């Protein structure tokens, strides 16, 4: 393994310092004992005891909001535990800051890459640990060493390139290589394949197995069952902040894991009511714009039209184009049979289109203002009497949405940032229920939302349909769009490549069309 050795020679003092706590393979390296994390009154992680064995690949599965991210943050020292203990190599440790975690050899590779996009790949790999001589950085030496590591790992990436010029998948590989060359003992992967192509995933898996071969303990967080069964030795399941069990991979199957994860059958979650489809609300003909091309589809009253595809397949772009956020370049939009030109968001809203966008944080919510302001934001012009806002109506509407949607807050004056993912999504929905619409576009409505809220959201869909609205549901989570859509369209690379009626195609068929093998 010339690459890694070379690096450790160059920086024999800086790298691999954490290798001073060797634990024999198969012995506990990190133990959580009744580890608990509370945010105010909300228990993000209920007291959990999980033991990680040296040199194993330990998968952690759970729905969004099950407490996986909290667990990673506790183990990497990003947040402090509320109670419980952590034992590292048999000794109790504080682990309350990231520096301590890194010094002990605990590292994480995050789903979203947290590196500097303007620096080169090599500079990122050596960030904070640069090779110096006489106070000057040895840029060429670093680039060569980094290239050695990358080549050795079989990544075929240029070390001199700017990180930002790589795909997100490639950046993820760089982040992994960075962790690998820092003498990591305990490496956590947080849903690493979410943005990777198949080939990149395969490269990553090879790397993970190789690190395992070198004695590194791997924690692999995912909700893709097939990956868990391909990689892991053992698997722990989290549900709503509770550790519900740990299994050896040979002694379980995906049906058992899914039951553990969601504690109910698929039918109970994916609440689906079928309504007689009414008039056509929306029709697009050959609509093209930034990120999508030649999309033709119709939405009728009382039906859910699902858009499935991988991230970046052009579904959200289509939604934003339709909504007037981005100008469309060609094609036509018909609203209730009439040709319309939706030039901006206000126009879309006035027609009766509502958009709950993909990212609550970036597009959906004003986080550091009160919940009430968010809920009323689209309707302040309606609430205005003369110069000022009708306070009474403003308060009534906010409180009504909070009550109807069961948003868990003591008051409409609490900041939106203080809410959990599920409650935040309800605020976004409340905003559009205040305004009212004929066509609701929900883009990834259940990401980061707990199972209970998910079921509530699906029931709400049925209520909207019952009242004669139509829904466009965008999701990257196949079971969701598959079970809920009256008509399912598959997107790939900005185009609509296939369409199916309710449950007319198999999961595999839809997935294959989305990936395009």
């Amino acid at each position, binding site marked *: 393994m010339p690459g890694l050795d070379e690096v450790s020679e160059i920086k024999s003092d800086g790298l691999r310092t954490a290798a001073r706590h060797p634990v024999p393979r198969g012995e506990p390296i990190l133990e959580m004992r009744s580890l608990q994390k509370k*945010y*105010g*009154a*909300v228990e*993000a992680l209920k007291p959990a005891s999980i033991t990680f064995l040296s040199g194993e690949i330990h998968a952690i599965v759970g729905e*969004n*909001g099950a*407490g*996986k*991210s*909290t667990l990673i*943050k506790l183990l990497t020292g990003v*947040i402090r535990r509320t109670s419980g203990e952590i034992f590292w190599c048999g000794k109790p440790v504080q682990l309350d800051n990231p520096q301590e975690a890194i010094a002990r050899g605990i590292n994480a590779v995050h789903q979203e890459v947290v590196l500097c996009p303007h620096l080169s790949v090599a500079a990122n790999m050596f960030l904070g640990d640069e090779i110096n001589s006489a106070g000057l950085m040895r840029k060429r030496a670093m680039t060569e060493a980094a290239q050695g590591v990358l080549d050795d790992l079989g990544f075929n990436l240029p070390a001199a390139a700017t990180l930002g010029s790589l795909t997100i998948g490639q950046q993820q590989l760089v982040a992994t290589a960075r962790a690998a060359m820092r003498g990591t003992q305990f490496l956590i992967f947080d849903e690493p394949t979410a943005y990777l192509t198949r080939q990149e995933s395969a490269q990553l898996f090879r790397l993970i197995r190789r690190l395992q071969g070198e004695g590194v303990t791997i924690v692999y967080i995912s909700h893709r069952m097939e990956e868990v069964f391909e990689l892991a030795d053992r698997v722990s399941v989290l549900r709503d902040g509770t550790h519900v069990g740990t299994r050896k991979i040979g002694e379980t199957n995906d049906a058992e894991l899914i039951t553990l994860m969601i504690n109910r059958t698929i039918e109970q979650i994916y609440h689906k009511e079928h309504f007689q489809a009414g008039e056509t609300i929306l029709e697009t003909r050959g609509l093209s714009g930034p990120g999508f091309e030649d999309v033709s589809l119709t939405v009728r009253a009382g039906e859910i039209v699902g858009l499935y595809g991988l991230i970046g397949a052009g579904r959200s772009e289509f939604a934003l184009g339709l*909504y007037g*956020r981005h100008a469309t370049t060609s094609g036509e939009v018909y609203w209730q049979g009439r040709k319309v030109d939706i030039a901006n*968001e*206000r126009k879309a*809203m006035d027609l009766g289109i509502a*958009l709950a*966008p993909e990212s609550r*944080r*970036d*597009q*959906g*919510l*004003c*986080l*550091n*203002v*009160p919940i009430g*302001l968010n809920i*009323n*934001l*689209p309707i*302040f*012009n309606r*609430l*205005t009497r003369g*110069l*000022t*806002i009708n*306070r009474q109506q403003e308060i009534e509407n906010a409180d009504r949405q909070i009550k109807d949607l069961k948003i*868990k*807050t*003591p*008051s409409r*004056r*609490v*900041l939106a*940032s*203080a*809410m*959990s*993912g599920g*409650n*935040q999504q309800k605020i976004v929905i409340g*905003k559009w229920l205040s*305004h009212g619409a004929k066509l609701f576009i929900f883009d990834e409505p259940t990401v*980061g*939302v707990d199972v209970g809220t998910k079921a509530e959201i699906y029931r709400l869909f049925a209520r909207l349909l019952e009242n004669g609205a139509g829904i466009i549901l965008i999701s990257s989570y196949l079971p969701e769009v598959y079970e809920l859509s009256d008509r399912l369209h598959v997107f790939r690379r900005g185009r609509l490549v296939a369409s199916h009626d309710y449950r007319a195609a198999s999961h595999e068929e839809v997935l294959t069309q989305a990936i395009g093998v």
Partner: protein
Amino acid sequence: MSAESVESGTGPAPRKGVSILFGLTLLGLLLFLWLLLGLATNSFWTPNNISNLLRQGAMTAILAVGQTFVIITAGIDLSVGAVVGFTSVIVAWLLAAGVPLWIAIILTLAFGVLIGAFHAFGIVRMGLPPFIITLATLTSLRGIGLLITNGSTISITNEAFTNFSRADFLGVPSLFWMVIVVAIPAYIFLHLSRFGRYLFAVGSNSEAARLSGVNVHRTIYLAYILSSTCAAFVGLLLASRIGIGNATQAEGWELQAIASSVIGGTSLFGAVGSVHGPLLGAFILATINNGANLLNVNSFWQRIITGVLIIVIVYFDQLRRRGAR
């Protein structure tokens, strides 16, 4: 991403209560300073000094209110001091040219509107950061003012105009009445009208505001126009008070305005602010300057004290915010 947002659904205290509490703390600080100075000096609680104090604080207070609108949108207006100097020149120049007083006043305020619109244009259409575009006008406006006056000052002979700043109404200096004239509509605008709500929404997340049908561009125009118009109004008051138009006047007032706003609880990250906060902030600063003069403290110390005060108050405000999470 889910876990860090899984924060308390019941923990944080309702926001309005906190904001009132903070306002009361500031008011308490102001009264405390007045009490202290009353005990420490014989001359503080004299009608003359109080009038003086109210006059000193008035102009910064009006600037700070305008500045606050901009800061709530997560922007900054560095040009307000220069606008004050520039518009003092404009009004003096118009009066010297024989323009009737009320037309001169309207034209001067119109300049404020134009300057604000130009700032918003630079931000919205040219994509310039607020810091840059207002820094550019800061230096340019001083230059234009100096060009107009050829580096000197223009005297104002209109007595009706210059007497105004010395006049009292109901025993209170007319300059202080101007604060009230600005503050009441400002309060209605920011706290009671939908445009105020839009300022907060845009400052918090302009993309979310936009997708909710808020006209983000119009909101930004509004904020910068209001800030510059407040500054032009202060330009009129200053010209009236010193009886001249001079482009180099009001040097550094933009920093006084920003400091008042920040002391008054406005967050430079946007989406947090009020009308009463910057008013109190401005009078706290004025009191410190006034008190330091009365106590014969070296005027250099005043600057140091002001700096320390900004750090202390904003630090406590940060602690409070973190505590609320």
